[in-house]
C-alpha cells in the first residue's frame, strides 16, 4: 500500500474509533413518549397519500372571519380564545 493511501486508511479508522468513543448515549433518555403510538414523525407524514395531503391543505381554508359585533348581536359565545402565550 502506498504511504498516502495508508495514511488515509489509518485516519479513517481512527475517525471511526473516535466517533464510537465520543458517542454519548444518555442512559436516562425517556422512552415513555412512544412516537409510533402517537403516529408522530415527519417521516410518517411524508407517507400520506397525495389525496390526503390535498385534503389537509384545503381543510384549513374552510374558515370565516366573524366580527365581534356580529357575535354580540347574535349572542354567540366563542368556544375558545387564542391569546398571548
Amino acid at each position, binding site marked *: 500500500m502506498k504511504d498516502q493511501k495508508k495514511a488515509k486508511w489509518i485516519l479513517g479508522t481512527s475517525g471511526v474509533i473516535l466517533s464510537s468513543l*465520543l458517542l454519548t448515549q444518555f442512559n436516562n433518555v425517556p422512552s415513555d413518549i412512544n412516537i409510533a403510538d402517537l403516529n408522530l414523525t415527519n417521516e410518517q407524514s411524508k407517507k400520506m397519500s397525495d389525496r390526503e395531503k390535498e385534503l389537509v391543505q384545503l381543510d384549513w381554508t374552510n374558515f370565516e372571519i366573524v366580527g365581534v359585533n356580529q357575535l354580540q348581536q347574535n349572542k354567540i359565545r366563542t368556544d*375558545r380564545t387564542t391569546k398571548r402565550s
Partner: protein
Amino acid sequence: MDTLSLNTMNTNFYIEIAGTQKMDWKDKVVKWLQQVAREWSRFEPNNELNQINQLKVGEIGRISPALYDCLKAADNYYTLTNNIFSPYLKLHLEQHGYDRSFPFQESTYKAIQIEKKTNKPFLFLDHNEVLKTDNQLIDLGGFAKGYIVEKIADWLRQVSPEFGIVDGGGDMKMWSSGKKTWTIGIAHPFHIHEEISSIRIQNGAIATSNRIFRSWKQQGKEKHHLLDGRTGEVIISPILQTTIITNSLCQAEVATKLAFLLNEQELQVWFDKLQMPCACLIAKDDGSIYWLKGGEKLDVI
C-alpha cells in the same frame, strides 16, 4: 363529549373530543405532556434537553425519538426561514435576562453582546443520534409546545374523528368531520378577556404571539422574549401581537415570529415560499388591527 384540563409547562391545557372507545386517552395525554414539560425545558438542570446542550463539539448524542423529531422539525424551519426562526437562542435569551421561568419583572443578569452564528450547530444522524458541530445551545420555547399540541391532536383525531380541539394556552389545533364548527375568539393584546376579532373554523391550527406578555427590564432597558434568529437581538417592531391561522401548529408558531420581522409583502412572499396557506391578524401599537389573507388587507369588523 369528553374533556381534559390540566396545567403543565406553565400553560393551561384544555382538550375536548367528541368521544372515543379508547378509555385511557387521558392518561396517555397527561403522561406525554408531563414528560415534555420535564425533559424539554431549558430551565430543568438534568433533563434530556440539557444533556444535548452539554455535548461538546464533535460529540454524538442519542436522544429520544420524540425529541429528535421535534428538534429536526425546528432545525428544518431554521433553514427554511434563513435563520429568522431559530431554536438555537438559549445563550442569547439568557444574555437578555430571560434565565428563569416567568413571572418576573426585572433581570439582574448582566447583558453581554454575544456573536450570533448562523451555521447549523447539529447534524442529524440515523438512529436518533445528533452530532454537535458548533457551540450553540437549544431553546425550543413555544415550538415544543406547538409540536406536542399538534401531535396529540393528530393522535386524538384518529381515536375521535368526529371533532376535537387541543388548546395549549391559546395555541390550538382543531378538527371536525363537518358537523362541528368551532368559534374562536382572538384576545386583545393587553386585555385578554376582551376579544378583538373571531373566526369560525372546522379544521386548522391557530397560534398567537405577543411581545408584551413575556417582557421584563434589564439594566433599565425593556426586553421581551421574541428574538431575531439571525442576530440574537430583541425584535424591535411596531407590532404588538400576531395571530396566525394555517393548517399546522408548528408552521403557525414559526409564522408568528416571521410576522414580527417582515413587512406585509415580504411576509406573503415567505408564506408562498413555504407553501403556507395562511391568514394573519396583526395588532400594532398605534391601535390598528387588521387581517392579512391571501395577500389582501382586511379591516376587523
